[in-house]
């Protein structure tokens, strides 16, 4: 039995029940794959791929990684970007220094290196919980930004302390053009979504959620809380690490440590909260929001030809204000994130007459 059909046969359980929305998972998965790997590469322009689709997917992947930690295991990280940077710098150095390794192996190794760092900075979770836990990952945020700036070895002595993909190729295909980078990003992300699905629907995911909902009870019924928490940090960092590598090489092309600064960590956090915690696809909506909103605001200004007359600086600042207001509004009005909004919207369209579904915890 293939993994895909296995998933198709498994009833959708847990927190992201989408009964009604996804009636026939296999069909939807197939449609999704066709859209992702046939339609988009054929239809989308360079502009769409390079500046909207790729960053959305990669940030969504980072959000998914953080969501595993925050949404499913109920832990906190304010330093997701630190683990992204580890993945990026590890990928670069592995590609550079061990040229025999093929790209997929390098990505997995880079993810594992990030996972190791995740375990290290997750150690305080054995002693403290709640918002304070953020401090340790915040420490990681500043430490790694410094580490990759301070030691030129990590960027192979580059004058600008930047890393760029030495060779973005797989099985002889050059992946450095927009479509190639998109296919790389989409393929890796699809596999990782599958992995996340498997994790969430395994004993590991169940126990994370148990710890999240009731840690005392979880301990009493015999769940290894400490180990599970560290595993959550490890797996979350694994995802973030690979997302970081894709961010650096699939999207930016060239990056330095500051591409993974505190702002980026906060962005990933926004993505999780806005997209919806404890959902697998919510992060991608959140990422689309974060990537698209500033562009849309800019475009609206452009389209309404305010540019000719109005004060450019004022408009730019206004955009920033509106972005902040939208974020606050979303947090207020959509506690369960965009994914729940979308779910409601779609089920509303499909089954306007059905009574309200059971609220989702």
């Amino acid at each position, binding site marked *: 039995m293939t993994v895909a059909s*296995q998933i198709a046969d498994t*009833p959708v*359980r*847990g*927190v992201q*029940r989408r009964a009604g929305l996804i009636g026939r998972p296999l069909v939807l998965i197939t449609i999704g794959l066709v859209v992702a790997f046939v339609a988009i590469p054929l239809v989308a322009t360079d502009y769409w791929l390079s500046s909207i689709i790729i960053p959305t997917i990669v940030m969504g992947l980072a959000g998914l990684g953080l969501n595993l930690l925050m949404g499913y295991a109920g832990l906190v990280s304010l330093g997701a970007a630190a683990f992204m940077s580890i993945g990026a710098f590890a990928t670069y150095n592995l590609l550079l220094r061990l040229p025999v390794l093929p790209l997929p192996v390098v990505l997995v190794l880079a993810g594992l290196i990030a996972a190791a760092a995740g375990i290290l900075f997750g150690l305080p979770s054995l002693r403290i919980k709640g918002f304070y836990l953020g401090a340790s990952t915040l420490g990681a945020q500043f430490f790694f930004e410094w580490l990759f700036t301070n030691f030129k070895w990590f960027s192979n002595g580059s004058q600008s302390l930047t890393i760029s993909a030495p060779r973005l190729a797989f099985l002889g295909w050059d992946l450095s053009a927009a479509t190639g980078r998109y296919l790389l990003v989409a393929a890796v992300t699809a596999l990782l979504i599958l*992995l996340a699905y*498997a*994790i969430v629907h*395994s*004993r*590991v995911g*169940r*126990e994370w*959620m*148990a710890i*999240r*909902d*009731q840690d*005392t*009870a*979880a*301990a*009493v*019924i*015999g*769940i*290894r809380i400490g180990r599970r928490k560290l*595993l959550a940090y490890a797996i979350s960092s694994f995802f973030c690490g690979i997302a970081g590598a894709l961010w650096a090489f699939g999207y930016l092309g060239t990056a330095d440590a500051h591409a993974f600064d505190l702002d980026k960590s906060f962005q990933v956090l926004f993505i999780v909260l806005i997209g919806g915690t*404890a959902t697998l696809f919510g992060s991608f909506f959140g990422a689309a929001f974060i990537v698209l909103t500033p562009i849309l605001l800019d475009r609206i200004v452009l389209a309404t030809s305010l540019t000719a007359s109005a004060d450019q600086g004022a408009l730019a600042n206004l955009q920033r204000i509106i972005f902040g207001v939208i974020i606050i509004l979303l947090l207020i009005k959509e506690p369960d994130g965009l994914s729940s909004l979308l779910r409601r919207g779609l089920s509303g369209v499909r089954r306007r007459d059905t009574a309200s579904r*059971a*609220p*989702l*915890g």
Partner: protein
Amino acid sequence: MADALLRLHDVSLAFKGITALNRLSFDVERGEICALIGPNGAGKSSLLNVINGVYRANTGDIVFDGVRFERIHPLKAADLGIGRTFQHNALFGRLTVIENVLAGLARHGRANFLENIFRLGRDRAERRSFTTRAHRIIAFLELDPHIETVVSTLPYGLQKRVDLARALVADPKLLLLDEPMAGMNQDEKAEMSHFVSDVNEKLGTTVVLIEHDVGIVMDLADHVVVLDYGRKVGDGTPDEVRNNPDVIAAYLGTVH
């Protein structure tokens, strides 16, 4: 005292100088239902928490199934076969009934996380056997209609039963029930007490439970231990306890 599953000896517990348990000793026989009763603040919940390691006793020791310990980690307690339910709702609120029950099998999991995630090796057999066991318990406690329901949306009485199922699925030798019938109406109480006695009879599980409703306790329990301000004031069969003047003074007379 032919076959004590649980033996408490001289157990004391204090929080910030306030004595919760005062040199408590008693035995729980294998296969019996032992009820802990006593007024609020008598130390009943604290005692359960000491037995399964949530609290650490200041003095005394506990012998469970031949294993003697002074303090125990909750995980170790679970491994030894001590299961429990909670006074206040401690279910995994956003999980479904089946997921809650499956989580109760955590201590039986032998597969490592990679096997779990990729459905390899031991995980395959585990998934099957866990699902079977969970379904069996769910059927046993008549929770089948709600199997895929998110527990926080269930009515209170059913949630209590899910809690019982979660503890029971791991096949505990000793089941600690912390007020399994609190807040229930008479019908629900009768139903729950029926389930508890079923568990005891059909699965052979030894039960220690806390309950305020003396009527139910006297019907259900084989053995009653009465606590008052952390001290044991009565210990015996329901009839013995009913006639114990100390108990009447300390508890029965004052509350109901």
